[in-house]
C-alpha cells in the first residue's frame, strides 16, 4: 500500500532569484495556533515562558527562543512556529495544529522592502517595521502575515492553497523592482 508522502506547499515553485533578491520556502516544523482561554492570557504567557522560553507576544510582535518563534497572529491568537507545543499550554489555551495550513516564504535581498511595497498596504520600511515586527495584512489580494526576520529578510505567509498565487505575485514584483535597478 505504500506510505503517505509529504509535499510542501511551494514544492516546484521555489526557490526563485531575481537580481539580488531571492525567495525560498521555509520548512518551519510544527505550527500551532494558540488562543488564550477566557481570562487565561497571563497564565498562558507564563506557561509559554516556562515551556518554550518565550512569552505571548504583544500585538504585532514576535517572541523568539532558539528555533521557536511565537508570532502574533490575530486579535486573540499567536502562531507558535518551530516547536511542538508543550502539553501544559492546553490548560490555558486552545491549541490548533496549523502545520500544514500555511505556505511560508522567505524573501531576502536589498530590494525586499520595495517588493513588499508593491504587495502589502503596510509600511514595512525598517524605520517603521524593525526586525521582530509582524503584521497581519494583505499580500496582494490574499490575507496573510508578514514578519521581518532580518534587516533585509521577511517571512510571508498565506494559506497553503494560494502558494502559487503568492509566488506569482512575488515574482512579478521582484522583476519590476529589479528592472528599475
Amino acid at each position: 500500500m505504500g506510505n503517505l508522502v509529504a509535499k510542501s506547499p511551494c514544492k516546484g515553485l521555489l526557490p526563485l532569484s531575481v537580481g539580488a533578491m531571492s525567495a525560498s520556502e521555509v520548512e518551519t516544523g510544527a505550527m500551532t495556533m494558540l488562543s488564550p482561554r477566557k481570562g487565561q492570557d497571563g497564565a498562558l504567557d507564563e506557561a509559554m515562558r516556562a515551556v518554550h522560553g518565550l512569552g505571548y507576544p504583544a500585538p504585532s510582535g514576535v517572541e523568539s527562543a532558539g528555533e521557536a518563534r511565537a508570532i502574533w497572529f490575530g486579535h486573540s491568537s499567536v502562531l507558535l512556529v518551530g516547536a511542538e507545543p508543550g502539553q501544559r499550554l492546553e490548560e490555558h489555551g486552545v491549541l490548533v495544529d496549523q502545520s500544514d495550513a500555511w505556505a511560508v516564504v522567505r524573501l531576502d535581498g536589498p530590494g525586499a522592502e520595495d517588493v513588499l511595497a508593491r504587495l502589502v498596504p503596510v509600511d514595512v520600511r525598517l524605520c517603521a517595521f524593525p526586525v521582530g515586527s509582524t503584521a497581519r495584512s494583505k499580500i496582494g489580494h490574499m490575507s496573510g502575515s508578514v514578519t521581518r526576520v532580518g534587516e533585509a529578510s521577511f517571512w510571508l505567509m498565506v494559506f497553503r492553497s494560494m502558494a502559487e498565487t503568492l509566488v506569482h505575485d512575488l515574482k512579478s514584483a521582484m522583476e519590476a523592482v529589479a528592472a528599475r535597478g
Partner: protein
Amino acid sequence: MRIEGKGLIARDHRVSFTFDGVRYSGFQGDTLASALLANGVRLVARSFKYHRPRGILTAGSEEPNALVTIGTGGRQDPNVRATVQELYDGLEARSQNRWPSLNHDLLSVNDLAAPFFGAGFYYKTFMWPRAFWEKLYEPMIRKAAGLGALSGEDNADRYERAFAFCDLLVIGAGPAGLMAALVAGRAGADVILADEDARIGGRLLAETYEIDGKPGHVWAEEVLAELRAMDNVRLMTRTTVAGAYDHGTFAALERVSHHRADRGAGAPLECFWRIVARRSVLAAGALERPVAFRDNDRPGIMTAGAVRAYLNRWGVAPGKAVTVFGNNDDAHRTARDLMAAGVHVAGLIDSRHDAPEVQGVHMIRGGQVCGSTGRRSLEAITVRRAGGEERIQTDCLAMSGGWNPSVHLTCHMNGRPAWRRDIASFVPVAGAIPGLRAAGACNGAFSTAGCLREGAAAAVEALEDLGLKASEPTLPAADDTPYALEPLWAVPGKGRAWLDFQNDVTVKDVKQAAVENFRSVEHMKRYTTQGMATDQGKNSNVAALAVLADATGRGIPETGTTTFRPPYSPIAIAALGAGAEGKGFQPQRFTTSHAATVARGAPLIEAGLWYRPSYFPKPGETDWRQSCDREVGYVRNAVGVADVSTLGKIDIQGADAAKLLDFVYTNMFSTLKVGRVRYGLMLREDGHVMDDGTTARLGEDHYVMTTTTAAAGEVMKHLEFATQGLHPEWDVSLCSVTEHWAQFAVAGPKAREVLNGLLDTPLDPQDWPFMSCGAVSVLGVAGRLFRISFSGEEGYEIAVPARYGASLFDILVKRAEGLGGGPYGMEALNVLRIEKGFITHSEIHGRTTAYDIGMGGMVSARKDCIGKTMSQRPGLEEPGRECLVGLKPVGPDGRLLAGAHLYRKEAEAKRTNDQGYVTSVCHSPTLGHMIGLAFLADGPERHGEIVKMVDGLRGVTTLCEVVNPVFFDADGGRMRG
C-alpha cells in the same frame, strides 16, 4: 526655431523622431512639443467638435490641444500630451481625430455649420423618425466624436502599483515645494517630494528668475543635491499626485518608462502609487489662463508662460515675430525674455491703460486683441486700441489672462475654493484636506520670494504637528514684486471666442446657455460641455464662469465653481488596475489533488476561488455525460473518490463552544454526543438561509464545523461577529482549519473496503455508524474520519494533514480503481445530490427560508438562534410561498432546464401566471431520465400534479410531474448501510 546657447537641453545628444511620418530631430531634454516647435511644426491637432486646426497652447500637462497618439497595437497610447511626452530616439507620434490627414480634415466642414451646432443643439433635434437615432444619428455622432483611438488589442505594457508612507508629502518641486522639502528634510522628517516633471524646479526652469543671485534652476539644482544626500528624503520625479483621499492618502502616478525608447526593458511603463502621509504641503503652482477673443484658437497662439518655457527651458522661439497680450505685469516678462534672447517682439498689448511701460517694444496700453487671421496658423492679429484698430503681422501670440492657482487637490474632498479679488483667482481654503497646507503660487503667492516664504512656513507648521523641531530657515533672496492685474476674461466683439479649446466651447455658447436658463454653473457646464474635455477646465473654467457671471448679472463668488474631482490629470486604467490581467485578478486556490486531477485530463471549474474537477474523462468517451454517468455509477455501484477539501472547516473550541453552535444553527448542537456529526442549517439575522453543513463534535468542548465552499469566509465572519460582537463573554476560540486538512469523500458500497487497509484498525460498522466521527491513523499518520454522505451511499470523509493530501488521493484512487470505482468530479457529485434531493447554493440562493426548503422543522422551538425571530415573520412562512419540490418529466425523453419557470398545465406562460422555477437538473443515470429540483408555489401540497415547465429563452416546454425531491432511496437505507 532653436536659439543657440539657450535652454536646459542636452545639445550634445541629438535624437530623431517622427510626427505623422515625417522625420525630425530634437535634443534630449526636449518634450515632443518643444521639439515640434523647434522644427517649426505648428499645426498638430484638430479640435473635438469643429475640427479646427490647433497647435500647442501650453507647456504642461494641462494642454488641451496638442494631443497625439504614440505607438501601435498593444502599445498604442492615444491622447498623449505632446507637452509632457519627453523626446526619445525613435519616438513616433501621430496626430488624431482627423481624416484623411491633419492638413485636410473632411470634418472641418463642421466649422462651417457651426451656427447650427451651438450649445446643446443635439437636445433639440435628431428625434425624428425615432428609429433613426440608433441607426443613423448616433453612429454618425459617435464616429465624429472621440479623440484618439484604442487599438482594440490587449494592453501589452507592464504597469505596477505600490504603497509609500511618509511624514510629509510635498507636492510640487518648484520654489515653494523645494523650500518645504528642504526645511522638513533638514529637520529629519521622513519626506517625499513629488513632481510631475522629469526635472526638479517647476517654474524656475521656465523663467529667468534669480534666487540668491543665481539663476533659479541653478538654485534648484543645489537644493536637489542637498535633498539627494538625505536618507530621509525620497524624490519622486515624473510623478503626478493626482488625488487626495481620506486620512492622508494620496494617489500618484509615476511615469516610469515613457521617456525611454526601450520602454524600460522590463521595468513598468507606469507605477500607480498610494502615498500615505501624516502631513502634506501642496506646492502645485499655478496655471496661466488664456484670454477669450475672436479666433483665439489658432496655432501659434499660446499662453505667455508657455512661450517663456519654450524659450528659456528649451531654447525655442515659437515664432519669428512674436506678440504678447496680457492684463498683468507678468506678461511683460515674456516680451523682455524674448528680446533678451534676440527674438523680434512685434508688439506688447496690455489691456490696462495704466500698465507700466516696457522699453524697446511697440507697446499698446489699454489695447485688446480682438481677432486673428491665418490659414492653418497665426499670421496676424487685430488690436483694438484707442483711436481704432491696428493689424499686426505676427506668427506667435503669447497671451496671459493672469494665473489660476492649482487648487485642484484641495477640492477632492468637497472643499470649495474661495475667490480672491486682488488676484482675480480662486485660492484654497485652509483645512479643505485635513493635514494639507497650500503654499506658494497654488495658494495665491505669485512672487518667487513669496513662494519660498510660504513653502518654508508650511513645512515649519507641518513639522510642529509632527512633533519635530524645525530650525528657523534662512530664506534665500529673491524677487518679491507683487503681482498686478486687471481682470480680462473675454474681449467683446463679434465672432467666436474660445473658452474651452478642446471641446470648442465659446463665449457665445456660455451666453446662450444663460439665455436658455442654464444659469447654475453646473447646468452651464453640462449644457455646453465647458470644462469636460481632457483638461477638465484647467485652462477655461474660471473664464467661463466669469462670462456666465456677467451674463447672469451676478458676481463670480455667487456664481460659484464646478467641482474638481480626481484625478488631477488622467490616469491609464492599466495603471490603476495594474496586475489584474488574466489570473492576476483574484487569487487561485488549488487543492492538494490538483496536479493529479490535471494529469487525468479533468476539465476544471471554479468554485469560489478554488478549482475543482468537472469530470475525469476516460479514453473513448466523447462527451461529458458519458464520463459523468460512469462516475455516478462508481458511487452507486462500487466506490468513488472526490476531493472535498474546499469545503470550509472551522475549529471551534472552548467551554462555550456548544452555546455558540446552538446560537448560530437553527438546530441543537449542545445535545450532540462526542464522536457524532449533525447536519446544521444556518440563517442570517433576516431569517433567510445563509449556509448549511455538518458539524462534528470531537470532544466535550471541541467541534469542527463544515461550511460550503462558497460561504466559508462569510461563515467565519459571522461566527466572529457572534462571539466578539454579541457574546464576548463566551469562552470560545475559532480557527479556520480548511487549509490544514486535505479531505476526501469515499462513497459507495465499497467505500469501507477502500479505507480498510489504509487505517490501522479496520472499520467496524458498529463503531462507525452513520454520522459518526473520530480520530484515525491513516498509514501511520494521524487523521480524522467522518461517516457522512452527500451522495446517499455509504460514505466517509477522510482527512489527513494537507502535506499528505496528494499522496492520499493517489492511494485512494488506485484502491478505488482496483474495486471498479475511481475518482468523480463535480458533475457526478451534482447528479448524486440531486437524486437525493440534497440542496446546494442553487437552492439556498439567499431568498429561501428553512420553510421553503422543507426544513421548517429544523428551527428548534427550544432555543433562540440568529435569524429565528425574523424567520417567523408572517410573510416568510405563509401559504403561497414557493417551496422545494422534485420534478420529473412526464415523458421519458422530457427535457428539464435549470432557470426555466413553472406554470399550471393549462396556463399561458406569462409573468402573472408564474408559479415557480427550476433550480437544478440532471440526467439521472440511476433512474434513466431527467430529474430536477424546483421551487413551486405551495409545492409540497402538489406532489402528483402535472405542471408546465417553460423555457422561453431556449424554446423548451415540458410537462412535469411534481414529486418528492428525494428521488432515490427515500428512506436513506443505503447511506445508513
